[in-house]
């Protein structure tokens, strides 16, 4: 690696989606709006990459087609795609996605965050770590790590 610290020096930048249009039905407070894939995508799209001044949407790390939501079953599954298969930031990105959703969604939701199958060398190990609620809780008590995670998600929570 020639450039110190940064692995993927020149990542491809993808086109951003337009803002979600709010329908009249959604503005009607008497109608229950189930949480859907687009809503999850909107929560995650502005998370910053830890290495680049770009969002996870611009890097195609999160895509609406890789989000599965079942509002009735309280289930949210996000598959994210690291930009390169050896990205050492994969766990941190996954943790940021998880923390962002845990803070934004009602607690009834079960949030699963996984790497898109085949997109990372340590896919299984990273998935197992992100699924371990005890490790996630302990990690978030580490003030240095929490600071880094907060930096990544600050824009998405604005």
């Amino acid at each position: 690696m020639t450039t110190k610290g940064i692995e993927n020096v020149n990542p491809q930048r993808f086109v951003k989606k337009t803002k979600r249009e709010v329908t009249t039905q959604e503005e009607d407070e008497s109608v229950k709006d189930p949480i859907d894939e687009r809503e999850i995508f909107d929560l995650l799209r502005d998370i910053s990459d830890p290495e680049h001044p770009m969002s996870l949407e611009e890097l195609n790390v999160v895509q609406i087609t890789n989000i599965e939501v079942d509002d009735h079953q309280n289930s949210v599954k996000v598959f994210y795609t690291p930009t390169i298969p050896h990205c050492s930031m994969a766990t941190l990105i996954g943790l940021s996605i998880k923390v962002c959703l845990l803070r934004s969604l009602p607690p009834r939701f079960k949030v699963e965050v996984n790497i898109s199958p085949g997109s990372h060398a340590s896919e299984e190990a990273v998935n197992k770590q992100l699924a371990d609620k005890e490790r996630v809780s302990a990690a978030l008590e580490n003030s240095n790590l929490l600071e880094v995670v907060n930096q990544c998600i600050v824009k998405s929570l604005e």
Partner: protein
Amino acid sequence: MARLDEVCKLPGHQGIVWNVGWNHEGTILISCGEDKTVRLWARNINSENNLWVCHSILSDGHQRTIRSVSFSPCNKLIASASFDGTCCIWEKKTSTEGNQYECTATLEGHENEVKCVAWSASGSFLATCSRDKSVWIWEVGEDGDFECAAVLSAHTQDVKKVVWHPHQDILASASYDNTVKLFCEEDDDWVCFGTLKSHDSTVWSLAFDSSGKNLATCSDDRTIKIWKEYLPGNQFGIATSDNTPTWKCVCTLSAVHPRAVYDISWCHQTGLIATASGDDAIRIFRIDPESDPHAPTLEQLVTVPRAHEQDVNSVAWNPVITGLLASCSDDMHLKVWQYKG
């Protein structure tokens, strides 16, 4: 029809409640969690509806989440294990103001988060385990000293839980490496004499039955398993080596828990097995008495689908009051339940 009735719901903790347990007389309920406190709860004798109330809060012992808590067999000491890497020993002091617990010792040595602490039935040993992959055995001295008797590095990943055999100085540990290991003392040395492999993911917890000849385990792989001890020279043709017993998986229950199973408690009075799961449910099972003891089947007696509002982290049967079960959850509450068969 068997039922599990909610006796009471106990608020108080400010955050995830990670672990519940009882003292050995079954009179005190104990809990700990993310708010860095240990809480003691007792039945309110002035109340007609069997409510449990918090009567002591142990704080100022730990800097981070308290993951696990355990009463000594003499009921005078409490041990707590924390993500801050230490284990605290709390001693009951009786004064004019009533009973108070004071932190009298801090056990240091683990490199990072301590996940579990457990007293041996004899009261002679304390075991701790950590994300640093090790299991420590502490010898309990008569003068209240704790001396490290062994550091066991048999697991290849974090160790989630340690549980002692109900009658012997045998320790079982469950790990993120998907295995369970068994340890005993041999010529003044602690050794691993068995590795139980069958789960496909993290083993979160385990529990012996009253005889200590059967072990139940639960896992992130959404199954629970029953393991049986076969002694050297057994008549069932199960091979053993080095004159040590073999532990064989005799039952796997899958397709019942839709999410990870975080805890399992085997009642030593009734033989009932309770599970705590990431699907917010509590389930009660028993081994079908008609089934072959070498290939038992688990009968599901009760499911409480929304036992808590979030993940259930721990369940514990009361050791004295038949059918009384405690549970705790991410939803910051404890609950007490009564089983009716």
